[in-house]
């Protein structure tokens, strides 16, 4: 089983696990330093643990509902904990989002089961939500052998009751919870475009020195909204933003999230080289 060696300075480059990734690494050995593996896929298909025979694994997660009011079950926390220990992941990248919420009953005023989603949602951007994240983290952190780092959500629509923008919210969470960050540049750019702010100005509001990992993926515009899209390559502007970020940030890892379908190998190779070059010249 391979594990990441962070004894040397610099940023490791990785690929999110998805269709065609093992074939890619077979064809281009050494082109990526690790594979980022979603906990949910490992849980659904434990045989994926064998991926770690090919490359070290960083655990990604979307099940903790860190910004939510319905906590994950003890069974889920236990399963994440087991995978954290087994994979020897250096950290757990979790979404700064919620995936469960109180249920709503339209017909009668009685308790209903919580709504459990399969896709994380951007929380209300408010002091109240920051408090909630802080409370949740204090419960969650002691249960894992690796630190949790938080990933900014993409924002597709205004969240009622919000009192601040995404950059301010992430900065406040990081400061108040003393937590490191997984900066998803695509999410950040998507949020900026959907909320009409300048991403290059907004990103300077983030505590970039706390960025431990960076995500890059694609996006597309449909029906007047910019959406996350891991099936298309990151646009050139994303690499421009990366160049700006690494002037201040020293991430330990950068993950290409091209995991919704197999992208052509030359595209992946070229994007890895591009990212490596930007990091080298930072």
């Amino acid at each position, binding site marked *: 089983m391979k594990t990441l060696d962070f004894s040397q300075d610099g940023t490791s480059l990785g690929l999110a696990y998805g269709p065609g990734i093992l074939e890619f690494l077979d064809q281009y050995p050494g082109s990526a330093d690790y594979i980022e593996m979603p906990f949910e896929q490992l849980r659904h298909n434990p045989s994926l643990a064998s991926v770690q025979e090919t490359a070290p694994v960083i655990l990604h997660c979307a099940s903790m509902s860190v910004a939510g009011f319905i906590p994950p079950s003890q069974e889920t926390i236990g399963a994440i904990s087991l995978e954290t220990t087994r994979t020897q992941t250096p950290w757990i990248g979790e979404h700064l989002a919620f995936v469960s*919420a*109180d249920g*709503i009953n339209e017909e009668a005023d009685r308790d209903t089961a919580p709504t459990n989603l399969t896709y994380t949602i951007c929380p*209300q951007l408010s002091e*109240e939500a920051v408090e909630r994240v802080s409370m949740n983290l204090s419960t969650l952190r002691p249960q894992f052998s690796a630190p949790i780092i938080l990933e900014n959500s993409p924002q597709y629509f205004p969240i009622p009751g919000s009192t601040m923008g995404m950059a301010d919210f992430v900065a406040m969470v990081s400061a108040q919870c003393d937590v490191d960050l997984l900066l998803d540049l695509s999410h950040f750019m998507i949020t900026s475009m959907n909320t009409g702010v300048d991403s290059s100005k907004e990103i300077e509001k983030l505590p970039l020195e706390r960025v431990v990992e960076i995500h890059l993926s694609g996006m597309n515009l449909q*029906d007047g*909204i910019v959406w996350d899209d891991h099936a298309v390559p990151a646009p050139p502007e994303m690499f421009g933003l990366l160049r700006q970020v690494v002037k201040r940030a020293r991430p330990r890892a950068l993950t290409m999230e091209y995991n919704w*379908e197999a992208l052509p190998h030359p595209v992946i190779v070229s994007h890895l080289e591009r990212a490596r070059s930007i990091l080298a010249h930072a």
Partner: protein
Amino acid sequence: MNARNVQAVIAAGVHHPVLLSKWQADSTLLRHKGIDPETIDLSALRKFAGLSVKVRHNGLRLDLPLTFRLMTLAELGIEVFSAYATDCDAKGHHYAKTSAERTCDLMSFLEKWLDLKQKNHSLLWDMIRHEEALARLTRSTEIAPVLVDNSDDRQPVLRSASVPRVQGRVILHRMQCDPAVVKSALFQRPPRLDLIPEETHYYCYWRKGEDDIQILDVDEFGYYALQLIDGLTSIAELNRRMGGGSRPTQAFKAALQQLAAIGIIGIHGISRARKK
């Protein structure tokens, strides 16, 4: 507005998009849940529900890569999956476990939902059927019995009582475009889907046993004949069902002979012309 209520409303709307229509029709329902209706974009929420369902269908991309690429380039993906999410919620439909079943369910929805007068909708309908046919035949493990040896190069002499039977598996689709042309357009920059010619094709996706899949652009005659051939019905009856008389016409026989020569059909009860 407290965060807990806001999250509950958003999650419910994404999970049950039918609620969004109710809230749109009666905003007091939102007020009762502590949400100011002016602050929530229900239309965007519906689209987000579409994204969520689209991501749940990522497993289909393996079989339908061009369909998904087309949906992205034609800016149809969010619209399609938003409508699908609402439709499934209204019907209480649970997403199937396998990709093949999910594709089948999605196609059933699209068949009713798409407006084929719109060029992009028509392209999507053709592309998903094209890729689904290839996927289904690829997965097919059925080893079809070869009923009649067509390797004999002598022309079969058809009789009215002869019974044609499809050899292997065929899937027939009438399309308004050539999927190969669409595929090429999808990889051009910029993709000019509007320039893809609209022309009727009658495609026969055919796999005999474990042979490679063949895509035959057959004529209308062959297409409808293949639809009717069931391995039980005689040539005379097939001719009648296709609008001919009781005696098979030479044109009909010639079409069948052509299909037999390719090997798609075998024919029981024929004699062979003498070799010269």
